[in-house]
């Protein structure tokens, strides 16, 4: 398989991506056991827009990215870059895989396990800061950063919750998620009943025609 982009550019991009990803994984020690469990799995991401193939090889040491792979693949996904971004950011990857624009081939369980490892990265900034700035300054800065991140996480969660409440309850622009799901479930149920009624009516009509003749 030959990539359409110049191999130098394609490989350089993968090398940069791999270095960034593994730096993040190295700072999040709890992600290593999850990756170790996925050793021997190979994930193929076939991006159609832009045209790009990336193979992920997880191991206890991190994730290796390659543009070419000739062996067997555990899970293969095909779709556009936007679909992959949606999957990577998704809180419910199974629903995204089912409802999104991605085509999946192979075993989805290891893919969901990998997505969860990447989505729950908890980066510990203290180690690199301490080695760069020394024990005291590094620790102080790490604590400040931790507080900052924790505050921004809380603030973002609070803002999202308040915004949701405003949209659903105050402005009544859109119904709440549970209400929508209920509505779709009822709709699906109604659809099934209509189908059954239609087939019963057809059966009765066929029986009537038989008795007349």
């Amino acid at each position: 398989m030959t990539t359409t982009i110049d191999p130098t550019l394609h490989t350089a991009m993968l090398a940069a991506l791999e270095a960034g990803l593994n730096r993040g994984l190295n700072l999040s020690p709890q992600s290593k056991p999850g990756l170790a469990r996925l050793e021997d799995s190979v994930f193929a991401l076939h991006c159609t827009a832009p045209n790009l193939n990336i193979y992920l090889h997880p191991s206890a040491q991190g994730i290796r990215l390659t543009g070419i792979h000739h062996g067997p693949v555990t899970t293969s996904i095909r779709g556009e870059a936007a679909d992959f971004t949606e999957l990577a950011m998704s809180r419910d990857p199974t629903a995204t895989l089912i409802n999104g624009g991605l085509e999946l081939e192979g075993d989805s369980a290891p893919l969901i396990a990998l997505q969860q490892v990447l989505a729950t990265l908890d980066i510990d900034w203290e180690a690199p800061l301490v080695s760069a700035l020394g024990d005291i300054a590094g620790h102080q800065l790490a604590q400040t950063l931790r507080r900052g991140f924790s505050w921004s996480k809380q603030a973002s969660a609070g803002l999202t919750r308040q915004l949701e409440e405003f949209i659903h309850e105050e402005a009544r622009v859109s119904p709440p998620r549970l209400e929508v799901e209920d509505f779709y479930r009822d709709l699906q149920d109604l659809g099934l009943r209509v189908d059954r009624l239609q087939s019963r009516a057809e059966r009765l009509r066929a029986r009537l025609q038989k008795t007349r003749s």
Partner: protein
Amino acid sequence: MSEKETTHFGYQEVEKDAKAGMVADVFHSVAARYDLMNDLMSGGIHRIWKRFTIELSGVRKKHSVLDIAGGTGDLAARFAEIVGPEGRVVLADINDSMLQVGRDKLLDKGRQGNIEFVQADAQFLPFPDDSFDCVTIAFGLRNVTDINLALHSMLRVLKPGGRLLVLEFSKPQNALLSKAYDTYSFRVLPVMGRLVTNDSESYQYLAESIRKHPDQGTLQGMMEDAGFCQCEYHNMTGGVVALHRGIKA
């Protein structure tokens, strides 16, 4: 009196028997600062070229790999990680100075157990037939006295289905790039060589040997003639470097 067979050493015609010694002198001279010069000359891109070579090699766990003209061990180190403790990597180089630098570098990085270091001539590889799943030679083939002999030797040591990968400077595919590359090779490289390794002649040889090396199509033909099948090449950085791959049937 019979005329002795000759070959090229850069732009010079030299006796075949003398080339290996002359090439050895070049690498004895640059071995200590080889990695630094590679980074300076290529702007670090040689690492990307080598990375693509590893991707295309298809090497997996438990494979055995021979890295000929392995120099300072960039490819061997990565292969050793991929093949794991049950695999085998042989770093071979004809030049003992280069091999010494490579061995020290890899051992200092803690790479041991599945790597062997062998001083060997690519034309007469000291391994049994059908020994390796993959053979690589990166930036080494143009320094070999008889390329055909080396290709036959590599074919012999490969297992059936095994792959040969030749990473080597080649012919740029764009006229403008070719001119810029010529200027860089003949004006900048020797100056850089003088400043860093105090040896401009070695880098003059490097530029000349690249121009004398067979272009993409010719090398592919030579691999096919040697007995490799499914031969193909990938141009990188506009053809400044090409990666050839052939498979032993």
